[in-house]
């Protein structure tokens, strides 16, 4: 069995090579059929944990998913992973045939899109960091819109004077923009190499990798129960 993790980024050619090299046996075929049916039937991306709960004891999930993914690479429907969850969705190159006229998703303003990009590439990001990069004050409305999309969440607070709230992206963000994980952000490597998002770190300290893990970073702490003394007090999700 090849390194599975590398398979999660596989392209059609890799997939063909993988399938030519590896052939699932009958037991694996059956686990694949089950995974296929489960992910197909689920109304939301399905976590590996949930799959395991429904598979026979001891079923080898990871190779089954790797085979399945490879088999679907060249099809009209692809198996994709978002974080630790799996889903089928239509192949990106077929968008033209599937687009539904009436359903134009609401367009984000340039300010909101840029703010989203800063949060995505630079997360966890505070309001001050967003303002520093854009060179303008961030309006409450922009942040409201982003929180409303469900793509941005309040992560915690920075362990720094004023304990500012830190923002990050959600699993929904990955899902919506068709990313498997945050490190798949387009151009992330070049930006890191150029040292452009080392905002709060002095030069030479290396560039922070954007992180959207559920856990907090070392310099973050939980939001806590104290009232937000930010301008964005109303950003907090309602209880």
């Amino acid at each position, binding site marked *: 069995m090849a390194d599975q993790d590398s398979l999660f980024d596989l392209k059609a050619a890799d997939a063909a090579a993988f399938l030519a090299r590896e052939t699932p046996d009958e037991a694996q075929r059956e686990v694949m059929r089950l995974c296929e049916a*489960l992910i*197909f*039937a*689920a*109304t939301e991306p*399905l976590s590996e944990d*949930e799959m395991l709960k*429904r598979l026979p004891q001891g079923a080898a999930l990871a190779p089954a998913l790797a085979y399945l993914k490879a088999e679907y690479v060249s099809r009209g429907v692809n198996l994709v992973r978002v974080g630790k969850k799996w*889903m*089928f*969705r*239509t192949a*990106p190159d077929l*968008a033209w045939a*599937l*687009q539904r006229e009436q*359903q*134009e*998703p609401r*367009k*984000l*303003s*340039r*300010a*909101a*899109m*840029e703010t*989203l*990009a*800063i949060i*995505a*590439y630079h997360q966890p990001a505070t309001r001050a960091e967003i303002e520093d*990069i*854009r*060179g*303008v*004050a961030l*309006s409450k*409305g*922009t942040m409201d819109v982003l929180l409303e999309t469900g793509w941005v969440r309040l992560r915690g607070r920075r362990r720094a004077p004023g304990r500012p709230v830190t923002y990050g992206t959600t699993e929904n963000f990955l*899902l*919506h*923009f*068709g*990313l498997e994980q945050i490190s798949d*952000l*387009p*151009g992330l490597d070049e*930006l890191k190499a*150029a040292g*452009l*998002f080392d*905002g709060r770190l002095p030069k030479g300290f290396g560039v922070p990798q954007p992180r959207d893990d559920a856990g907090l970073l070392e310099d973050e702490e939980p939001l806590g129960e104290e009232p937000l003394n930010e301008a964005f007090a109303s950003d907090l999700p309602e209880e």
Partner: protein
Amino acid sequence: MERVNDNAPGRVASGGLDRAEAEFEAAGGERAEGEADFRVDVDGYEGPLDLLLELARRQKVDLSRISVLALAEQYLEFIEAARRVRLELAADYLVMAAWLAYLKSRLLLPAPPKAEEPDPRELAASLARRLKRLQAIRAAAERLSERPRLGRDLFLRGAPEGLDIINAPLYRASLFDLLSAYAIQRQKQALSHVSLKTRQVWSLAEAREALERIVGMAVEWTTLDDYLIAWVATPAQARTVRASTFSASLEMVKEGLIDLRQDRAFAPLWLRRRQALAAE
């Protein structure tokens, strides 16, 4: 500050600017020939950094090789032009202008003997870096928004069957719950049986119903007790049966159905069907 879209007038910190008024021809001869007039719309910029980035792009060089001095001059000219048409500028534009004026003078003048102030070259490099970073995030935002989007370009299954979770109840109870339920309920029941031992009472309605059946047979004078008390009642019921029957019989006398007589006080009560009725 947020711009609603690329064309509509946005809200700007300077506030209340009419778009037409905000548009004016920027002074300046730095433009390449043939290029259209550089019409500057303050509303079109998201702050001084955005304006600087736009001016820098007009130098048509890599941002890392930009002339910060030239950029500062262009920005100051722009601000000067805006002030000539008495355009109210947001404070942050003026702060940037002041800082750039300072940077320009430091870049032009020889370094002071005691280098206590920051190196102007450092400051210029830092500004260039900020511009580069803004440009980079703009490009990133652009690439992000060009990605295929779920619900527009990518679709999930239209009609998933759904995965069911069937809730199988799992009952829990402790032995203590069981025993105390038993004890509480048995004790309650045992005590309520004692206190609520009910007396048996013959209702008026029951007595009347019985009496009506008897009357049919009582063509001759008959004692009430012979029929009712002896046959219907147990000794414990005798009093209530007698009392209710007596009341019912008075009712029936009043209705002309029977005759009633008693020879003396506490003597047996005699009852007979009304003759007129018997004749029928």
